[in-house]
């Protein structure tokens, strides 16, 4: 999934403003902190989002994509074990 913004479309752009949920603010803070600490970088973060399957990419929100890429990159780097987040959330 690359270059999504360049695809031709007749659909209007949704320019409405909306409030961010608490978890979205936390997601932003977490990802930026990981970058500030040198754990991951913006290019890895973008590459992780581009690795999403198209259907999944289209069906989730902006910060859900941030969650996807942060988990993906942290698993790649061995910071998180595969499935570790899911286990902790469900336990």
């Amino acid at each position: 999934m690359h270059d999504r913004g360049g695809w031709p479309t007749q659909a209007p752009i949704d320019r409405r403003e909306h409030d961010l949920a608490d978890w979205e603010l936390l997601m932003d803070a977490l990802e930026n902190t990981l970058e500030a600490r040198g754990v991951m970088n913006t290019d890895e973060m973008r590459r992780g989002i581009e690795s999403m399957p198209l259907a999944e990419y289209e069906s989730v929100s902006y910060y859900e994509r941030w969650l996807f890429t942060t988990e993906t990159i942290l698993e790649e780097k061995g910071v998180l074990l595969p499935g570790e987040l899911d286990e902790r959330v469900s336990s």
Partner: protein
Amino acid sequence: MTFAAGDDVVVSSREHTGHNRTPGYLKGRRGTVVRAHDSFRNPETHAYGGDGLPKERLYLVSFALTGGDRVLADIFEHWLERAA
């Protein structure tokens, strides 16, 4: 090859698998350099655990659209060729 404001350039249309910051809709298009930015780590290696070095020069490039509008995009030097 370095470029300066006013230089006519063509964006390379070469195949590239993997992350890159060059918009697909501009590949193969002719444009004009507006400004030379600083140099930055190369996202194509920096996105895969590399250090992104050597840094690559980044340019602001203008692409004319029919009707008088233009698209402005930041394009790395290694994606630009001098226009014939």
